[in-house]
């Protein structure tokens, strides 16, 4: 259960906290803050790990805390605490005021909180609808058993985690909302070995707001996919390094757009002066075949939200339309400091982080080509069927590991290759995406950045990049 015992002068989940929240906000405004925001959360999480044919870890956790943010001009002070009493929250306000060195008497007006927007009403039952630890354990064990397809598979793992987060958000512009978020994720991993050869395979699945989703998960299909991938890569040779055209598969292939371009379209990057796209609004930054979207509204997708962590409903933001930059991903601080309107993208890992402009479900829109069209158009290149992780550096350079890759020769897929990394810069690679497939699919992931690790979806159809540096041996 997420509800706490009722105590006086303390935030109580599931109850009306309006008077207490107003009192705290009044206190902050009275001390000279331009803006006060309170984010309070109560979490109930659990994770289960199956290895080989045993459950080896069950880890429940719960907690609560508050993050208080105060703005004075464009400066902000953020204080987080586990103390949800009136005294504790007031003390946090005082600490933030003191940090910002606010002494002037000019006071903003606070007219009280608006009518409560409660997004949690239909979600309170979720905690009783999610699978029990027993049910999760049974299905994970069946899944790891399904991975035992031959004696080359030397390790088999299945993991599940469920995060239930109840939030209350209130701020001096009148925002007063509550919500419950549910995220479930399940993954399978194998390592295959034969003499000196080794390979691995992994797949992760995830959903938001769908308590029944784990029950519907097709573990047989997932196990077959992971097994096949590890077997295909077991005897693969290392790829030769060089510049070449590549075809990136759909689903998690979208991680490249997310890392290499998506982050550069967050207003936090404009604030830092680290995006080459800062002054490129309405200019061409990508090939005309590219339209890219960031949204938080696709039902059940891992990055979807009813309301962001600053109390705004998420919008569908067309970032790039036919190669032209149309919009940046913005939060409250981003709007204040860069002038780009909020997009319902203020997100944080938990109460101990201030919200920042972060991606949600981010993908390249589908085009008109088939996957075969893309591959047939290449005489020598690389097909990246499955991508590993990646990162983008301070100057915009990115690098991504290719988990499962195949050489393309004369328009056909040939031998598997390992050890490939894709290296480049968004500014140079975006104009080289010359063909987009018609098979858009999304995949869940976790994105770590300034406001912690948040759930996101990446995605794309199959895409062709005319030329990119492939790192290898």
């Amino acid at each position: 259960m997420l509800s706490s015992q009722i105590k006086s002068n303390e935030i109580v989940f599931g109850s009306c906290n309006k008077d207490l929240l107003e009192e705290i906000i009044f206190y902050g405004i009275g001390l000279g803050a331009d803006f006060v925001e309170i984010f309070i959360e109560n979490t109930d999480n659990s994770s289960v790990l199956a290895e080989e044919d045993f459950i080896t870890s069950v880890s429940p956790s719960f907690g609560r805390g508050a993050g208080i943010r105060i703005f004075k001009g464009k400066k902000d002070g953020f204080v987080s605490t586990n103390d949800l009493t009136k005294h504790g929250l007031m003390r946090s306000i005082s600490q933030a005021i003191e940090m910002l060195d606010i002494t002037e008497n000019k006071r903003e007006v606070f007219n009280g909180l608006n009518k409560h927007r409660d997004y949690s009403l239909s979600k309170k039952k979720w905690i009783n609808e999610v699978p029990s630890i027993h049910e999760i354990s049974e299905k994970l064990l069946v899944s790891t058993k399904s991975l035992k397809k031959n004696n080359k598979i030397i390790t088999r793992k299945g993991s599940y985690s469920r995060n239930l987060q109840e939030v209350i958000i209130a701020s001096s512009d009148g925002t007063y909302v509550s919500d419950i978020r549910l995220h479930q994720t399940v993954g399978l991993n194998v390592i295959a070995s034969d003499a000196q050869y080794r390979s691995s395979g992994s797949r992760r699945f995830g959903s938001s707001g769908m308590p029944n989703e784990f029950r519907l998960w097709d573990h047989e299909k997932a196990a077959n996919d992971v097994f096949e991938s590890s077997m295909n890569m077991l005897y693969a040779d290392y790829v030769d390094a060089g510049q070449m055209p590549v075809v990136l598969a759909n689903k998690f292939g979208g991680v490249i757009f997310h890392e290499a371009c998506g982050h550069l379209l967050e207003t936090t990057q404009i604030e830092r002066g680290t995006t080459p796209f800062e002054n490129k609004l309405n200019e061409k930054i990508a090939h005309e075949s590219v339209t890219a979207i960031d949204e938080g509204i696709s039902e059940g997708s891992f990055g979807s939200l009813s309301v962001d962590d600053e109390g705004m409903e998420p919008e569908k933001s067309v970032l790039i339309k036919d190669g032209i930059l149309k919009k940046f991903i913005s939060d409250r601080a981003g709007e204040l400091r860069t002038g780009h309107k909020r997009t319902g993208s203020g997100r944080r890992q938990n109460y101990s982080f201030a919200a920042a402009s972060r991606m949600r479900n981010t993908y390249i829109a589908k085009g008109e080509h088939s996957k075969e069209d893309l591959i047939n158009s290449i005489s020598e290149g690389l097909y990246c069927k499955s991508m590993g992780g990646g990162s983008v550096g301070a100057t915009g350079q990115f690098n991504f590991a290719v988990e499962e890759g195949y050489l393309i020769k004369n328009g056909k897929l040939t031998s598997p290759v390992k050890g490939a990394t894709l290296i480049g810069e968004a500014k140079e690679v975006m104009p080289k995406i010359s063909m987009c497939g018609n098979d858009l699919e999304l995949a869940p992931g976790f994105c770590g950045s300034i406001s912690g690790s948040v759930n996101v979806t990446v995605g794309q159809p199959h895409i062709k990049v005319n030329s990119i540096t492939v790192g290898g041996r």
Partner: protein
Amino acid sequence: MNSREITTQISKAADFLNLKKWDYGASFSNDYSVQVDKGEAKQLKASQKQILTIRVWNQSNLVGITTTSDISESGIKKALKQANIASDFGNKNESTEFSPLAKDPIKVKEVKKRNPVGIKKLLTVLREAEVKLLESHESIKSVPYNGLSESFFERVYANSEGAFRSYSKSQAALYLYARAEEKNKKPRSSGSVKLGYGADDIDIESCIKEASNKTISHLNYSSIKTDKYLICFSPESFLTIINAFSSMFNARSIIDGVSLSNKNSIGEKISTEALNIYDDGLHEKNISSTPFDGEGTPTKRLCLIKGGRIENFIHSESTARIFKTTPTGHAGLGSKVSVSPDWIVVEKSDENFDLKTSLDHSTYEGEFVYIEELNAIHAGVRASQGSFSLPFDGWLYKKGKKISIESATVAGDIKYLLKNIVNIESSQEVTTSGISPHIWINELSITGDA
């Protein structure tokens, strides 16, 4: 509640729930940090955090666990109840016990207790550092990533057999990453991190100088031809590689089948005889040192590689029991106990006759690639397969001149790398993650744009 009161509270609640065997780990922290942007305060942060992890053993001696930030009386009771429920799913295949060393005396470094300097002073210091860095070279246009923080924390371990350990300490960190821009050239970025027990202990001037010098040194850049090169790893980059493949020394990874080593690898020659590697969490230069691990086992210096041969693995209580040895002080506290290294120290052994000592990064005039810093470790390392392909910052040295490498990756195999060490320079350098000299590798593949 203080740590003694929490122990009493857990003990009482466990008695009430008829839980005879339990242990817990807790941490309490107060953190303060500032960031600036061209002289203006950008974000000022303060946080108060508390985390409690409780393990209980049920009547079948299976372990359950729960973690919470709610350290109230009701929170502790709820955590014990949840841990008890979780124990029904405890690992029947591998038991967990208290560490046999959880009551052994611990060695706590004598560190002068630092007091908070406060947000205002942190802000003043960081503003001044930013200004100095911006003024250090006309091409440095901004310091997009910067921060100064100080943390004060206490860690506790206790169990139902009377073990009780706690220690408290302070730590401060400064990071400055500058961005340099020149006309018709790509922006270049580099930086520096410095740690101290308190903000007043941080060598701010050297952090500014290092960030400036590194950034400026990359202004004159060129792409590199894809080929195999003689490589010199900086102390920092070599430690990055060793940490990325530390599963080779990790008993938990060996049991889980994700290590390149196996139970019989002790004594196996994996490198030149000139290489010694230790894990030394208590080293006097390790500012982040902790006197005990998650299971209460004292931290100690442990030899991992001696004369090129694997000497020891790092252990938790359960892996040590499986390997018929003693825990080494490298455990976390979890439902499945993790094992990880503390602070790696790399040194040249006495048996260094096979080294090419003429290879010295400051005097060698032949062609080689100097790897200053490796990036994107999480993406480019396949620890279970031994392979890596990583972007790096570095220089190509040719005929005594150096030029920054525009954009490149280094790829290879850890076993090949260790076996092809051709020199270990004599002088060691202290970094934030350990100590190492410069290490030379015969040949690794570099992919560049040229």
